[in-house]
């Protein structure tokens, strides 16, 4: 069987070699890089533009962006027919291709995020490593912890006022450079699609900008959502520890302040930025749609049938109504609550996912003959490795990956620093 044949349903006149070659993993790819870019931009809003209300969110968003970064190239690796040859992109990069520079952009961006994280957490590394260094009889766990944090300090133990000030300056500069690079990383994913002249739906110079705007929406939404979940779980945990029958002794310093869940004020401020970028994204998408309809060139006939008939539910119901309009209204109604925010955020993320789906899968829903259609039947129950990785299983694995990584990373980069709490509020 030819690759793609198993999940492609052809209708009317389609060339013999045409199948849905870019399946769910290529939907996941811009979705995940979008989350990376969005999370980073959110963290930079505090570091570069000094939006004080986002302080707590900024630290969190940066660590999350780093966790997402590792998951971002995984969809491509799973999608490749020869995953082990992926390294060829670095060995013989062919720079006329939009994919060739991916490695360079990706690693440049990774280096920026990693260094920013280092400057942000340098003080913490030293504070953990120093007492362990002086301790005489270290247990095995303490030895491992000592080695990890000792290496993370990179041999710099200077915590003077002056050096910490310099750290802050470095963070600001790195966050500043990071914004254009993050936008480039993602705009670049948009360019991969927008530059395919053979595809009538993809080819538009607006594609990179649309991708960036919706990326920021999804990144902010995911950060807010994870923030709420982490804070609420933390609250429940501490509350359960406080039960009188528990013998666990609580830190005497842990006041009522520490056990509160997600801050609605933080959510409200962040939601404003979410709405702002959502407006940009929708405006550009509608402009693209209106322009195509108005100019009505050769391929408009088939595009119209795909947009208004075949993919109507995906585009107008799931993407625009449930993914954009409803969250928009939910956030605009005064008196935002955490529960309402959660519903809005989940819907906004689904909206961005559906936008990626409608671009990637929708772009292959019609044939190059402009007189036939193809439908993607996503494999749910895998038959073999191929239907697993390019089906529901592969997509879910990719989506879960950053959360697992974040959980591990949060052990090294504490997202909620107790000593910073009073200062933050």
């Amino acid at each position, binding site marked *: *069987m*030819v*690759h*793609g*044949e198993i999940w492609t*349903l*052809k*209708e*009317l*006149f*389609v*060339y*013999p*070699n*045409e*199948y849905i*070659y*870019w399946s769910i993993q290529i939907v996941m790819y811009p979705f995940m890089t979008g989350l990376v870019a969005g999370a980073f931009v959110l963290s930079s809003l505090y570091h570069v533009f000094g939006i004080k209300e986002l302080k707590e969110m900024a630290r969190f968003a940066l660590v999350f962006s780093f966790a997402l970064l590792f998951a971002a190239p995984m969809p*491509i690796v799973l*999608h*490749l*027919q*020869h995953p082990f*040859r*992926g390294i*060829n*992109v670095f*060995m*013989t*990069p*062919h720079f*006329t*291709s*939009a*994919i*060739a520079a*991916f490695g360079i952009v990706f690693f440049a961006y990774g280096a920026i995020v990693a260094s920013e994280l280092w400057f942000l957490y340098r003080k913490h590394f030293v504070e953990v490593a120093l007492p362990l260094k002086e301790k005489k009889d270290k247990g095995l766990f303490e030895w491992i912890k000592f080695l990890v944090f000792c290496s993370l300090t990179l041999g710099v133990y200077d915590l003077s006022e002056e050096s910490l000030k310099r750290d802050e300056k470095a963070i600001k500069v790195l966050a500043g450079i990071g914004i254009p690079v993050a936008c480039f990383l993602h705009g670049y994913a948009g360019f*991969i699609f927008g530059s*395919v*002249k*053979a*595809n009538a739906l993809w080819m538009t110079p607006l594609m990179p900008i649309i991708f960036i705007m919706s990326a920021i929406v999804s990144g902010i939404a995911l950060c807010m959502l994870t923030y709420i979940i982490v804070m609420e779980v933390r609250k429940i945990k501490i509350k359960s520890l406080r039960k009188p029958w528990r013998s666990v002794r609580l830190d005497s310093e842990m006041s009522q302040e520490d056990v509160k869940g997600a801050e609605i004020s933080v959510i409200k401020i962040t939601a404003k930025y979410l709405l702002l970028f959502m407006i940009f994204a929708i405006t550009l998408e509608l402009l693209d749609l209106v322009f195509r309809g108005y100019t009505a060139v*050769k391929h408009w006939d088939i595009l119209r049938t795909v947009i208004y008939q075949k993919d109507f539910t995906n585009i107008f119901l799931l993407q625009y109504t449930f993914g954009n309009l409803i969250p928009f209204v939910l956030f605009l109604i005064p008196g935002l609550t955490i529960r309402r925010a959660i519903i809005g955020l989940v819907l906004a993320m689904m909206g961005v996912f559906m936008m990626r789906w409608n671009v990637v899968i929708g772009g292959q829903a019609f*044939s*190059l*003959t*402009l*007189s*036939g*259609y193809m439908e993607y039947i996503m494999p749910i129950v895998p038959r073999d490795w191929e239907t697993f990785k390019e089906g529901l299983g592969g997509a879910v694995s990719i989506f879960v990956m950053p959360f697992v990584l974040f959980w591990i990373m949060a052990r090294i980069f504490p997202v909620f620093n107790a000593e910073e709490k009073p200062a933050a509020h």
Partner: protein
Amino acid sequence: MISRRDFIKYSLQGIAVIAVPLTAIEIINPSKLFASKGAKKIRWGFLVDTEKCVGCGFCVKACQNENEIPYDINASRTWVERYVLTKDGKVLADSPKAGRDGFITGRIELGQGKYQDIKNEDIEKAFFVPKLCNQCENPPCVQVCPVGATYQTEDGVVLVDRKWCIGCGYCIMACPYGVRFFHPVYHAAEKCNFCYHRITKGLKTACVQACPFGARLIGNINDPNDEVGRIIRTERVSVLKDEFGTKPQVYYRGLSKEVR
């Protein structure tokens, strides 16, 4: 002790000394020199005479045998399309099994296992169009390959290195003619290469050799004595989808506006 200024100076001189012989070799590259002195370089071109094609599918079979394409897969390096225009103005087209088994009935394939029977008396016009890789002068597939596994030879044919292709599928997406697919055995991008292993030895392509009606011709279009080149220069021919700016090198005689 060497000063910094001297160190930089000597380094630059050293680099210059190393670089000069290398560039000298490049300047008098013997093969390039020979090529520029000789006759005009080869440019392979293809001519399809749709008026002569009867849709027998011999070309598709011959291609599959020649190029290690498993017999029963639903993809092919070359294929034959059938166009049927009915008296009530409908345009129907299909290419079942890439036209390999010929078109022996009036049943048109509509996909999803559906067919439509067309009676002979309802047909206004019907014809066959063979398709293959256009070996474009400006190939979008070569442009988008991230590793350079697909490339254009000096004589204009676009080839794929099966051992270097990573299988990303970007070239498949970039081709406006839909000629590419993944080889089911090698899992690398696959497409017609004008039987490069044959034409470079002076043979015809498998499909040209198999065509009983002379509907397919291949030749060096830069050669003034070549039949294909002469027809392209002196007669009315057209190409497919020239709006993409790919400059295709497969020329068609008798192409109709319904052809996609």
